């Protein structure tokens, strides 16, 4: 359920980047304060372990499909929330850069969806209370499954919220939620099961590893207040700045206005600041609505005039211009490419 660059707007992407960067900064500070050098190689090697473990599958009985471990939850159980969050962030960064899972702008969303929820919500509020101190195996198993399912549900909901807030996909909120939550309930159960069998194995083979984390002191006093306040400030700031930039386009906001008010834009005063800002907007909006979504096409009258309002010649010129530009891009590549030898894989 990696979020993709292609589906998000800069406002959403930027906000989530700021949020994730803030939490990374906070976690880094926490770890430096603990000055536990030993944790540094452990975090890194466990991150690599997540990759490796995702390559080992097991068959789900009766379905024919297979599942594997997710990551966030088992890291939180083994490392505690701060180190687990950093590890998950680094795993996702490498996935974005090398495997093209998601993308660079969506990385903020992905770190938040797959890192924040398991480490800072599911682990302290669900796993720890259920598992308690020095848990028996059954409690440990129950805690891991419930926490993994819960974390994934929150993550899936967050994907929906981010997609809908971006307005690039046409999927309405309720349909999308109804699709995503059940699918991720199933995925969460499988993931929870995988996490659990691994945790149970470690618990049997080397209980001291889990003791170290389930003991109250090592997890530290987990205060959510600071990261949440930082998050809020970052969200408001970037959201405010970036949404000005983004709202020059007919996306989420205008769409919802047109739904509620019946017109694409609310009538604005024709003079003064509003009018001059409008001019700026017309300029920055880059061929406002570019011959596609014209006002008339949005108007409620149905019938023949629908669709014909768009000037066909404009479409043709767009196609011609587009192909010419593509050709030119190819030409530039060809000019620079000559005389280079190929690198064999």
């Amino acid at each position: 359920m990696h979020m993709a660059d292609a589906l998000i707007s800069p406002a959403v992407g930027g906000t989530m980047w700021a949020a994730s960067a803030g939490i990374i900064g906070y976690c880094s500070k926490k770890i430096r304060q603990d000055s536990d050098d030993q944790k540094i190689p452990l975090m890194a090697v466990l991150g690599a372990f997540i990759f490796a473990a995702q390559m080992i599958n097991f068959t789900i009985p009766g379905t024919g499909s297979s599942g594997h471990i997710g990551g966030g939850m088992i890291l939180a159980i083994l490392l505690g929330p701060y180190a687990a969050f950093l590890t998950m962030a680094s795993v996702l960064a490498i996935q974005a850069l090398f495997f093209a899972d998601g993308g660079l702008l969506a990385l903020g969303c992905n770190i938040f969806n797959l890192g924040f929820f398991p480490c800072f919500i599911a682990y302290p509020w669900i796993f720890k209370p259920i598992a308690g101190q020095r848990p028996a195996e059954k409690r440990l198993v129950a805690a891991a499954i419930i926490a993994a399912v819960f974390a994934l549900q929150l993550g899936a909901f967050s994907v929906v919220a981010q997609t809908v807030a971006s307005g690039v996909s046409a999927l309405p909120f309720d349909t999308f939620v109804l699709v995503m939550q059940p699918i991720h309930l199933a995925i969460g159960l499988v993931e929870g099961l995988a996490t659990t069998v691994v945790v149970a194995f470690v618990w049997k083979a080397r209980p001291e590893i889990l003791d170290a984390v389930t003991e109250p002191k090592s997890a530290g006093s987990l205060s959510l207040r600071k990261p949440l306040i930082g998050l809020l400030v970052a969200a408001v700031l970037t959201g405010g700045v970036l949404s000005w930039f983004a709202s020059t386009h007919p996306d989420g906001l205008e769409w919802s206005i047109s739904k509620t008010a019946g017109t694409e834009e609310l009538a604005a005063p024709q003079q003064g600041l509003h009018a001059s800002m409008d001019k700026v907007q017309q300029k920055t909006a880059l061929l406002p609505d570019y011959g596609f979504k014209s006002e008339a096409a949005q108007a409620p009258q149905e019938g023949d005039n629908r669709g014909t309002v768009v000037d066909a010649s404009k479409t043709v010129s767009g196609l011609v211009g587009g192909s010419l530009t593509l050709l030119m891009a190819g030409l530039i590549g060809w000019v620079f490419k000559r005389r280079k030898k190929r690198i064999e894989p």
Partner: protein
Amino acid sequence: MAKIDKHFFDLGYMDTLASQQTPIHRLDPRAKLITTLVFITMVVSFGKYEISALIPFFIYPVFLCAVGNVPPVYLLKKLILVSPFAVMIGIFNPLLDREILVRLGDMGVSGGWISFASILLRFVLTVGVALILIAVTGFYAVCAALEKLGTPSVFVVQLMFLYRYLFVLVGEASRLVRARSLRAIGNGGSGIKTYGSLVGHLLLRTMDRAQRIYLAMCCRGFDGKIRMLKPLKFGLPEIGFVCGWLGFFIAIRFYNIPALLGGAVTELFK
């Protein structure tokens, strides 16, 4: 099985590409990182029905590929492999948004198809440049750039370490999977019980390895910092690269070159 080895080998190939010597590879990683981030923000800032204005943005990845000697076919293959999520969500647009927005002769194209095409273009552009960034810079250099740009050093060290041990552990996991499939007939041995002990053992071995690494690092004077041999230098070529491309991005962000060009050409033939 084949897929695991493929992934593994892929990572190595990206490093091979990154170790080339071209004008692009010689640039300071910060310049490439900043330009790429601005590029991605610009691309996703367009409205959902935009297609033609996105096309000039292909010039940047094409230029990097050409000068940096990155094989485009390899990149395309990688892009297709990882496209499912964007395509899966995007494919609903043609179903949900059926309003005809453009007419080409008798054929009407609905807004959904246009926004779907726009999503695909964005996907290729944004994910493509991220892959190219690594192929012309290398992961360690990107990490160094991140640190210089203010990322907490704990996180940067984590990234570098993770990347270093990725190869070791992926190799170990693929040996485990191979051993299991050699001993199993059909689907035997792939149940949850075997899985638990398989991954559990891998985890325990991993933790022991971390301990050995830590001790070895302590012996060599590790103090929580990793020092880079190659100093970073942000000179004239870097300033030129960043300013030049930013200027170009701003120009194509605010002027739809294909539309202007197309208008001029169709005018000629009238």
